[in-house]
């Protein structure tokens, strides 16, 4: 299983987005950057599939041209 999911997959997406933004409440720019980096690493570990992660990196780097 090494397909990267790029169709909608988050239930109650608005709730998630609000929680994501709220996680940054009160942080400085540097603290927010650090939070994002930790979050990427945590999610990457959860995925745990090198092929999927490689595709995700490509999709983020050049959306639509991975």
């Amino acid at each position, binding site marked *: 299983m090494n397909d990267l*999911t790029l169709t*909608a997959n*988050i239930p109650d997406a608005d709730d998630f987005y*609000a929680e994501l933004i709220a996680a940054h409440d009160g942080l400085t720019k540097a603290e927010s950057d650090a939070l994002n980096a930790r979050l990427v690493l945590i999610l990457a570990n959860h995925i745990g599939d090198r092929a999927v992660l490689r595709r995700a990196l490509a*999709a983020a780097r050049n*959306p639509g*041209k991975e």
Partner: protein
Amino acid sequence: MRAVRGGGPVNKIFEIPLYPYARNADQDAAMPAHHRVAVVGAGPIGLGMAIDLAMRGVEVVVLDDNDRVSFGSRAVCYAKRPLEILDRLGCGQPMVDKGVEWNLGKVFFDTRQIYDFNLLPEGGHERPAFINLQQYYFEEYLVDRLRALQAEGAPIDLRGGSKVVDVENGNERATLTIDTPDGPYRITADWVVACDGAASPTRRMLGLDFIGKVFEDNFLIADVIMQADFPTERWFWFDPPFNRGQSALLHKQPDNVWRIDFQIGWDIDREAELKPENIDRRLRAMLGQDIRYELEWSSIYTFQCRRMERFHEGRVIFAGDAAHQVSPFGARGANSGLQDTDNLAWKLALILDGKAPESLLDSYDTERIHGADENIRNSTRSTDFITPKSDISRIFRDAVLDLAEAYDFARPLVNSGRLSLPCIYDGSPLNTPDALPDGPARSRPGAPCPDAPLGNGYLLRRLGGGFTLLTIDAEAPESVAADGMVATRIALSKGEDASGALAERYLGAASAAIYLIRPDQHVAARWPAYDAAAVQAAIRRAIGKE
């Protein structure tokens, strides 16, 4: 301003006094005249409230300091549920006939169209998901309906040029002082319903406050009349070249009127922004240098997302913007206000009839505060997406927009307004616990009844304005009474459900069902089979007696 409509030059409807001040007998009475209900404000919510009450036989007087419909288009987007409520009030059809239906939207980011969407409204409903209609037409059709009711002898009075300048809230009644061109007079009323808008003078006179937040932003609305070949779609721009760092919206209304909305930021010179030459510069940058148009109306607004702690205090009840305000994203202002009056009118009529305890009003607070909080939550989130409040919020917003162009998954995260849906009164004290667990979740107790085709007509048209016992392939008596309340049966079967929508929306996996439906067409209770004691208990519960 003159405009051409219907072949000849006529005045704009919002320039015509539809209910000019006229002297009434109350002004010559030795003692303040008494009324059952006084509605303050003849906007969409006040008129809806008064019509609903009058149709229930409740004597009502509507007071407004103005004498004509709203100036400018203002609220322009009306959703399915309010249209269904207007059908019950007998004036949905002219709104839908005049309104512009739309289902398609396009989203732009910078110079690119990043995607388009279709609301794909579910089939099998009489009314569309949305129509666009100027608020002045909406109010005009409500006034027409009020006049028709008056002609039939309904106890409803609309008084223009009548400004409520003092409210005395008592235990048994309220006393209003009304200023007129002939000087002030006083009336008393069993109940006052304040539908006097966001700045509600009634709320201020009673010293009641709001909780919530003000958003530091301004929006410039321009309504322009133009022959344009844009399709009937909602176009929304994030950060376009013609309004850098801000948003913009284009939406069609009837009579070739186009609503254009520019976000313009907090620190502005209002007077300068409203100068026609400045609006003209913005419009040409957006639509092209050679457009031809006539400016019908322009306005700058800022907004707040907040509500009152309680929606009634003594003998004064608040509805619509007077009770709660939201950002305009998602069309939740007028739409939720009509759901307030839909919820309130039958309860107030029963209380005045002595059929329900005054404590039934507490359920108006519970249910409509639930609705207001849902609307405030949704519209606040849209606002935060459209105008990010921090650098990191803007970074995520722009990332979502960048990804949405290439990937389906990011599109549900794009939030330029979550369009208004009626709220489900989960947890309401008027609900009887769900006894049809195999039934669809969408029609559980507390939910507004979904429409469905029935023969040549539609289900909601058959419900009327009282309690209904809807049976689907189930036996029950033709009516059930409890504590002086009567629920009238409507017997349906799968045989008349050619489309299958009735079964899908009311049966789910069940083979038969009985629904107790409230006068506002929300589900109070449901069962797999008839049980007289259970139905009677549910009726008592739905009128606040259990």
